[in-house]
């Protein structure tokens, strides 16, 4: 992708300034400025755009505990910040340019849907994005992609309109004119192709990092079934995330724009198809990267997907028995209530539980000292 950027700068410079160097300098300047903004601001921009709310330990102890468990399993140095996005769509993402200032965000819909093991799998996937520095890699890649798209867009428009209004350059000399036209045509074709090529490369990198994060999640939890069954729940829902956009898509655990029945070998997606990710996770005989690689070649055919350096020989046994079992775990209705309690509290609503069982949500602007239960008529202090 870097090479594409350099080429585009080269052609732009050759055409507009008769010097490739100037074009190169401009391309690299644009890229550098965007990168700096992206490097220092991307996480706060992303969190603000998705309207995520930060939670503390007491807001949702189970979520906090699960994140802390995965922080310990991955050996992350600092506890990541946890955010909840108030959205019924099922999704989660991680952000933060280095492992020391990471954040994990999850939608309230997903929080309700998943049991503890599944939640652990999803959080492990997100934490491994942080641990593998995918957030930084993907934001740098998307900035590179953005630069190429911007330059190609403006470059091609100016070229087309410039040549229509009787170009000043080609008329200067006869022999030079022909060379100019060749450069014009080559540059134009390249301007059109470059963004597409860049996009395809970008998608390929993104999908590879998703596989790596799945493998790391299995390694951290020693329980690939947790993530697999979470992905299954994610896959059956088609609700699209309102606050996601194209630029932030690769950060999520599943593609926020997916449609039903997406083809298996889709080149134009940031994520591998969910059904394939589930099949790989379920085919794992152990929890190591090596096991994931073997499961991948079994499901997919051909070579594995893991970077060769990270594969240590041998396998790691799976956790067969979960210690605490299912005892004391809230069911889906309880989880839904719990999550809605948290969301009300995060919007500064005061919740009063009446003796008759009704829950009164008192808005922050409520001024009266007492409130009457609309169900049974008892009065409560606010």
């Amino acid at each position: 992708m870097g090479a594409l950027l350099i080429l585009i700068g080269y052609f732009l410079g050759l055409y507009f300034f008769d010097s490739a160097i100037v074009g190169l300098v401009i391309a690299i300047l644009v890229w550098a400025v965007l990168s700096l903004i992206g490097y220092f601001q991307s996480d706060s921009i992303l969190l603000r755009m998705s309207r995520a709310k930060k939670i503390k330990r007491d807001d949702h102890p189970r979520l906090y505990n699960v994140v802390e468990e995965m922080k310990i399993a991955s050996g992350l140095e600092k506890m990541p910040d946890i955010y909840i996005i108030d959205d019924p769509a099922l999704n989660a993402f991680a952000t933060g340019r280095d492992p020391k200032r990471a954040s994990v965000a999850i939608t309230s819909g997903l929080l309700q849907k998943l049991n503890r093991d599944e939640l652990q799998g999803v959080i492990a996937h997100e934490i491994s994005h942080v641990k593998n520095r995918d957030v930084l890699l993907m934001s740098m890649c998307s900035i590179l992609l953005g630069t190429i798209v911007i330059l190609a867009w403006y470059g091609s428009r100016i070229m087309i309109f410039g040549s229509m209004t009787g170009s000043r350059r080609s008329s200067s000399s006869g022999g030079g004119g022909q060379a100019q036209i060749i450069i014009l045509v080559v540059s134009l074709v390249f301007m059109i192709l470059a963004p597409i090529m860049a996009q395809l490369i970008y998608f390929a990198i993104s999908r590879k990092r998703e596989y790596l994060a799945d493998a790391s999640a299995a390694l951290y939890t020693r329980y690939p079934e947790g993530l697999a069954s979470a992905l299954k729940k994610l896959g059956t829902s088609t609700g699209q995330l309102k606050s996601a956009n194209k630029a932030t898509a690769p950060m999520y655990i599943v593609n926020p724009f997916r449609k039903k029945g997406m083809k298996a070998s889709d080149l134009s997606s940031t994520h591998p198809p969910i059904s394939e990710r589930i099949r790989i996770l379920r085919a794992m005989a152990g929890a190591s990267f090596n096991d994931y690689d073997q499961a991948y070649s079994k499901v997919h055919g051909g070579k594995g997907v893991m970077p060769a350096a990270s594969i240590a020989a041998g396998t790691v046994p799976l956790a067969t028995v979960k210690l605490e079992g299912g005892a004391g775990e809230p069911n889906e209705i309880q989880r839904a209530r719990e999550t809605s309690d948290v969301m009300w509290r995060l919007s500064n609503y005061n919740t009063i539980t009446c003796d008759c069982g009704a829950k009164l949500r008192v808005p922050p602007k409520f001024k009266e000292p007492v409130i009457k239960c609309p169900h049974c008529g008892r009065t409560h202090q606010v």
Partner: protein
Amino acid sequence: MNVAVYIIIGVVVVLLIIFLAIYNGLVRRRNQVKNSWAQIDVQLKRRYDLIPNLVETAKGYMKHERETLEAVTNARNLAQQLSSAGAGERAKAEGELSSVLSRLLAVVENYPDLKANQNFLALQEELASTENKISFSRQFYNDSVLKYNNQTQMFPSNIVASMTGFKASEFFEVTLAAEREAPKVSFT
């Protein structure tokens, strides 16, 4: 003549740089092992603190489980006493504690009143999570020990390790009765 001297100096400098790089790598790995050991310790201490609260809350509801509750308390006290002992002895006591705890949490299923108690549920979540954190920190510790030990034993870093006194570390193995055989929980 001069050229030979330069070559020798160059080789020595390169060797020195390699030596320092390996040495620093070993120090980093050893610190990680120490660090992850401290992590396990934090979680084990947290478990000692949680258990009395849990037993106190459960006591009122579980009239017929006096033995189980006492077993938990005893195992906890024993584990706490052995907390300054060596890794092997300690791991055994902690494993015992884990298995009586999982027995207690399985028995809780028979007491619907207790399961409805918010305070108990919060404690149970904390305890279950602490159990997970113990096993995850143990997992991370063992991974760190494996990497460190490999480095102290493999060529060429083993030369540096033996010269500067890096010794292999001990794994934290817990053989839980509960991990070997699935607990039999009946929901009748």
